[in-house]
């Protein structure tokens, strides 16, 4: 079933604040094999001028995926998740994510296109602190593969 193109531009309510914990960052860094001390050790992070442990560059996906759940579950969009693959991913960083941040995500549908029997859904997620400081903008382009 084709995605509803009139949903382009739709935005979704902000997520509940997410508290970035040191152990969560360490767990994520372990899972991707990121060995830099700034991802694990507070004093190493502070010595390089950071307020606390730094999250690796792709860590914001942990938050944006939660926000994107609102989009994927939108009954008016009618997406068949079994046919979804990740097409493109982009991050624009205002600053790194740090342990101790409390972050809110707001997702929206930036683009809906169809090409070659597939459909492409571009979701933009703005990640900010609860003090409204922008931290990172996340774009995920999902491909809904056409039926064979």
């Amino acid at each position, binding site marked *: 079933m084709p995605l509803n193109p009139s949903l382009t531009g739709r935005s979704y309510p902000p997520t509940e604040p997410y508290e970035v914990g040191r152990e969560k960052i360490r767990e*994520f860094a372990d899972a991707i094999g990121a060995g*830099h001390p700034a991802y694990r050790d507070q004093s190493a992070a502070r010595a390089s001028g950071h307020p606390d442990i*730094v999250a690796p560059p792709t860590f914001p996906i942990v938050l944006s995926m939660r926000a994107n759940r609102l989009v994927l579950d939108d009954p008016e969009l009618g997406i068949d998740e079994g046919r979804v693959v990740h*097409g493109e991913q982009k*991050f624009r960083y205002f600053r790194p994510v740090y342990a101790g941040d409390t972050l809110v995500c707001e997702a929206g549908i930036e683009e809906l296109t169809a090409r070659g029997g597939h459909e492409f859904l571009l979701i933009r997620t703005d990640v900010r602190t609860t003090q409204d400081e922008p931290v990172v903008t996340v774009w995920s382009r999902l491909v809904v593969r056409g039926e*064979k």
Partner: protein
Amino acid sequence: MDKDTELPERSFRITRADLVRYAGASGDFNPIHWNDRTAAENDLPGVIAHGMFTMALAAQALVEWTGDPAGLVEYEVRFSKPVAVPDDETGAEVVVSGVVQNPTAEGHTRIEISATSAGQRVLGRGSGAVTRDA
């Protein structure tokens, strides 16, 4: 870093155990990343790595090249082919390479990235990063 400098290739290995661990750490429990039956039902070549896992590995290469764990201004990738991860001890190999491009108008370094697995390009054209480091 000078334009056209080829950065040292970096190779990573991904096993099924790594995928389970990444699923837990990231919260992405999509069964195509751990269940052969689901992967087959979705016309995939078998269990595939999370695209975001491949992107995280390429970020490790960027961090090693620049020496800065927090220097990225922009980072984007195109997932051109899935990384199939066989159910054995060796898993899949992902090889990441990078080439320095012209700097941005702000004077930041731009690096084009490519990644291959089993001889196929898994991070395609348009993949790359802008970093504060020179």
